[in-house]
């Protein structure tokens, strides 16, 4: 596949077409840190690039979706370069969020305990002690993919996905942890539930978190979960 090189802040990127109206950017060095992706997304958001409607960050790449057909890759890359130069904006501010989790509402404790060889209490401590980065959102609106799970509590996803997982479920899949903002089918091992929701169509923007934000969890009891959930409904 054809690609062109582009330098942003001293880092080399490879730019190729993801479609007639979409570009894909990948850092050239193999194990680029996630912070590089989010920093670059920040630059792109502040740059003036004609027809750019969506910037989709992922673990090791960024997609740029336009409302127009791409020109040849050379001109597109040049436009990106000059748009970024004009922006002259630094890093976007990283927000920190503390998310309450009721671990008693986990659905897959048996599997996770068996796989990790750890007791529930130890797993909860490790899950709540880590600092996570919101890597990306996807698969359904407001699903949070978090990077930074303690390797000792990683656990493969379920062989047979559930057809329904309640909104707010917190799960583990491989080396990641994640949060379901909406009820949906899914294969993650569910270890708890948060009363918080991160997707609300009546808000602008509809998500209260952004890729690149820092996330921490803290434990709450089932009674606190009920109370927080009902106070949300009232407001």
């Amino acid at each position, binding site marked *: *596949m054809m690609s062109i090189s582009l330098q942003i802040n001293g880092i080399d990127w490879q730019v*190729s*077409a*993801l*479609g*007639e*109206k*979409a570009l*894909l950017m990948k850092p050239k060095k193999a194990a680029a840190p996630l912070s590089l992706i989010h920093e670059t*997304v920040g630059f792109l958001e502040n740059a003036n690039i004609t027809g750019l*409607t*969506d*910037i*989709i*960050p*992922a*673990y*090791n*790449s*960024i*997609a740029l*979706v336009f*409302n127009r*057909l*791409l020109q040849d890759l050379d001109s597109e890359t040049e436009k990106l370069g000059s748009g970024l130069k004009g922006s002259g904006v630094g890093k976007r501010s990283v927000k920190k969020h503390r998310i309450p989790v009721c671990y008693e509402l986990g659905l897959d404790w048996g599997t996770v305990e068996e796989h990790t060889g750890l007791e529930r209490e130890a797993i909860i401590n490790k899950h709540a002690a880590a600092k996570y980065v919101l890597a*990306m*959102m*996807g*698969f*359904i*609106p*407001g*699903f949070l*993919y978090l990077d930074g799970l303690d390797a000792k509590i990683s656990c493969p996803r379920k062989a047979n996905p559930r057809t329904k997982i309640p909104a707010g479920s917190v799960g583990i899949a491989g080396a990641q942890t994640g949060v379901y903002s*909406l009820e*949906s089918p899914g294969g993650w091992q569910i270890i708890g539930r948060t009363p918080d929701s991160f*997707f609300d*169509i009546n808000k602008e*923007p*509809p*998500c209260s978190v*952004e*890729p690149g934000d820092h996330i921490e969890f803290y434990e709450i009891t089932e009674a606190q979960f009920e109370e927080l959930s009902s106070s949300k409904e009232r407001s």
Partner: protein
Amino acid sequence: MKRSLEVLDGGLQTTVQDMGRVGFRKYGVPVSGVMDEHSYRLANWLAGNPSEAPVLELTLQGGSFKFHSDATIGITGAEAEIDVNGNPVQPNKTININSGEVLNIGRVKNGCRIYVSIAGQWDIEKVMGSFSTCLVAKFGGFEGRALNKGDRLTWTSQKKPTEIRSVPKKLIPHYAARQTIKIIEGPEWDWLNEAKKADFLATDFSLSSHSNRMGIRLKSSFVSDIKGEEMISSPVVPGTIQLPSDGAPIILMKDGQSVGGYPRIGKVVDADLWRLGQVWTWNEINFNLISLEEAKELSKYYSEIWDKLNS
């Protein structure tokens, strides 16, 4: 003047759709929007509406609607028996309906989705810039869901009935049982070796009945030999062809996610994506690889057709 219709039978899945939403992909919000953009634009033209107005998208089984006001409508897309109060009517031609009449759209005989436009301004609010229904997150369109019996759709129209328009014959698609779909290379195309690439392009695929607005799932004897290469979740767009290790490709469609974890071996060209809105289990699909430049030329070709229609 306020006008309305009542749903007597919503069929399998009848939703309000337009061109979909842009600007929210990073939150995991799908594009949504019509599966067959070509029929969609033709339907709006028939009703004298702006070409990107909301329409009803009906799936496989048709539906039945009682009009409580006079209305001017356009019906395009999949072939089916259509009648108004039992009198057969033709699609692809402006239809005037009188208050009290019932529009019946039968099960599709060819194709998969039928589009119904109604002249006027629908009483539906845009959510995040679009009228489209987002079924996975239950918002947009009509209460975020498919239409059910008893639902009432209302709209405002001052206009006298639009002139009777007929879609030019050459713009009415023929829904062939066997479809050759044009694709371009995806980021992971080269993960297939030359023999496998040739094999993929020579394979006839059939559709799984698990296909839907999120993705079209294909079946065949094709076997993927992509092994050992760990695919990290990466951005995808409507049309992206994912190849899981079982060799059964998934073509992401309008309700598809914004990131995916399977090799993206190709992408259906935008100019052919609407054809996939009309395929179902009775169709056979094979792929024809073209260049990005050719794909863009095809996009321009369709844009010109649609622009000319509305000029």
